[in-house]
């Protein structure tokens, strides 16, 4: 199919652009901004995970930060105990993935409807927030890792070369690693969405009953998508714990959960680029707003969100690409079948 070639061309272009940005940015951006930028990249991975689950799977998860936080905690606890970061890194993907699979099993196989799904996932995040917050005593220790309640876990050791705990990742290194991870997740998801599995996931979002009548078990496909999204969010959480060398229950908080959804709304659901763009844009604006005293940052961000929902409901990326398509092609008029009245 010709569409395939076009799709692959776009993917190659996106990959090249991503690599160029990854190499060029550290050369032209000052070190303080690089620290910010690294956190944007990490959050963009989190945004991508929700972009998959919500935008393609049609599952509105209000608690994507739960998997992010579980990934961060899994990494922190494991790396403090093991020293070497190889297995902790894997755990930060596997543990939230399994947690999402377990949660998804109960929700999808019980055929919980969308609204309740949102409520339950949000509740799970808030429960985790409370539970982790309640672990402040010295008795709450996993191996050598004290959980620390609302104070969190300080001095989380950084990632290291596999098997070489003495060769730790530098801060520049974390930027490259996060950037490559974002790129790899993006490309991986693009390829996945082109596969049979991805086609079916989108078909289920479009019309679940029809997909089932075609022989696909919608519950299984949703569960798998949800678990993949959970695993990706967990990986972002691991990078986040590396970025701050610190993790606290705040990652499970309401603000964090809402933020991810806002990024995806602003960037645009149903695309993979949208969540990344939305995440970078909103975070950059938030940083800029934080640097001034004139206006309350949350007030401005709230206004931006309302503006988007009202004026650009599809989000930035779908709106821009629709506009480009209109410029490129004239509207296609279907050959009309001659309509006759049935006698």
């Amino acid at each position: 199919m010709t569409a395939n070639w076009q799709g692959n061309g776009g993917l190659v272009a996106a990959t090249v652009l991503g690599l160029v940005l990854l190499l060029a940015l550290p050369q032209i951006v000052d070190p303080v901004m690089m620290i910010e930028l690294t956190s944007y990249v990490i959050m963009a991975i989190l945004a991508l995970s929700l972009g998959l689950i919500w935008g393609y799977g049609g599952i509105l998860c209000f608690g994507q930060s739960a998997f992010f936080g579980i990934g961060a905690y899994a990494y922190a606890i494991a790396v403090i105990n093991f020293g070497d970061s190889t297995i902790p890194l894997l755990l930060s993907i596997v543990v939230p993935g399994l947690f999402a699979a377990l949660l998804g099993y109960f929700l999808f196989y019980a055929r919980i409807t969308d609204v309740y799904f949102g409520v339950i996932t949000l509740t799970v995040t808030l429960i985790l927030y409370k539970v982790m917050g309640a672990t402040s005593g010295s008795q709450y220790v996993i191996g050598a890792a004290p959980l620390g309640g609302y104070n969190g876990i300080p001095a989380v050791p950084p990632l290291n070369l596999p098997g070489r705990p003495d060769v730790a990742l530098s801060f520049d290194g974390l930027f490259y690693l996060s950037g490559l991870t974002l790129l790899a997740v993006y490309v991986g998801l693009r390829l996945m969405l082109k596969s049979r599995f991805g086609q079916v996931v989108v078909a289920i979002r479009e019309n679940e009953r029809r997909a089932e009548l075609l022989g696909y078990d919608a519950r299984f496909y949703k569960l798998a998508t949800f678990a993949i999204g959970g695993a990706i969010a967990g990986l972002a959480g691991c990078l986040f714990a590396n970025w701050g060398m610190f993790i606290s229950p705040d990652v499970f908080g309401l603000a964090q959960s809402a933020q991810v959804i806002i990024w995806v709304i602003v960037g645009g659901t149903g695309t993979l680029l949208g969540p990344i763009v939305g995440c970078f844009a909103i975070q950059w604006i938030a940083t800029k707003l934080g640097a001034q005293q004139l206006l309350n940052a949350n007030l401005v961000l709230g206004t931006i969100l309302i503006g988007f929902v009202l004026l650009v409901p599809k989000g930035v990326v779908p709106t821009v690409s629709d506009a480009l398509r209109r410029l490129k092609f004239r509207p296609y008029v279907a050959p009309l079948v001659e309509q006759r009245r049935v006698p």
Partner: protein
Amino acid sequence: MTSPDCILETRGLEKRFGGVVAIASVDFRLKQRELRCLIGPNGAGKSTFFKMLTAQLKPTTGQILFDGVDITRAQPHQVSRLGIGIKNQVPDVFNNLTVAENISVAARSRHGKARAAAKGKDVMERLGLTALTGRLVGELAHGQRQWVELAMVVALEPKLILLDEPAAGMTADETNKTAELIREVNKSAAIVVVEHDMQFIKQIAQTVTVFHQGRVLIEDTMDKVQGNELVREVYLGKSEDD
């Protein structure tokens, strides 16, 4: 056990919605590669019957046997995998996907990549959808969307095809083409068609089953059914002067 030449059998099938009896103890038998028409006034229970056969609704009591397997408590995707394909009354398609993608999703449910592509191409050619492959299904006319759904069902290569008002909203030409297609597909699959369009039924009918108030009123050839006083009274009488 069902007899070997019987592909579908329901025994005492019943569906109640609260106090309303939509289907009341229906015993229905369909032979391999049979073409059956199901008629009856609105609310006779035809669509409910179809929905139970495809596990979209769970029967209150009774049993459904398909190809020797009890599918009474099966899930919709399992019923589909066993070989029942259905076109629902309202076009039930993937509106935001293209025609080619719609059919590809259907074909890949049963076949590997290469065979699915070939099957999809073949089906689209047979239904004259080739010119529309890149169009979003949601943008198509009602009749065209009906065909997309038909194409999806045919691409599954089911052993039994259930068609709920396949000619609704179609032009005369399109209706003729649909009848032709049904006869062709019937060479390899049993088909049950629900329709209101009597001209269409006459084009394809072998045996006709009349539903009335959730029960089978009569089951016979089209001529005999049309000649039946009771049927004329509940159903055909109203459309006499069309």
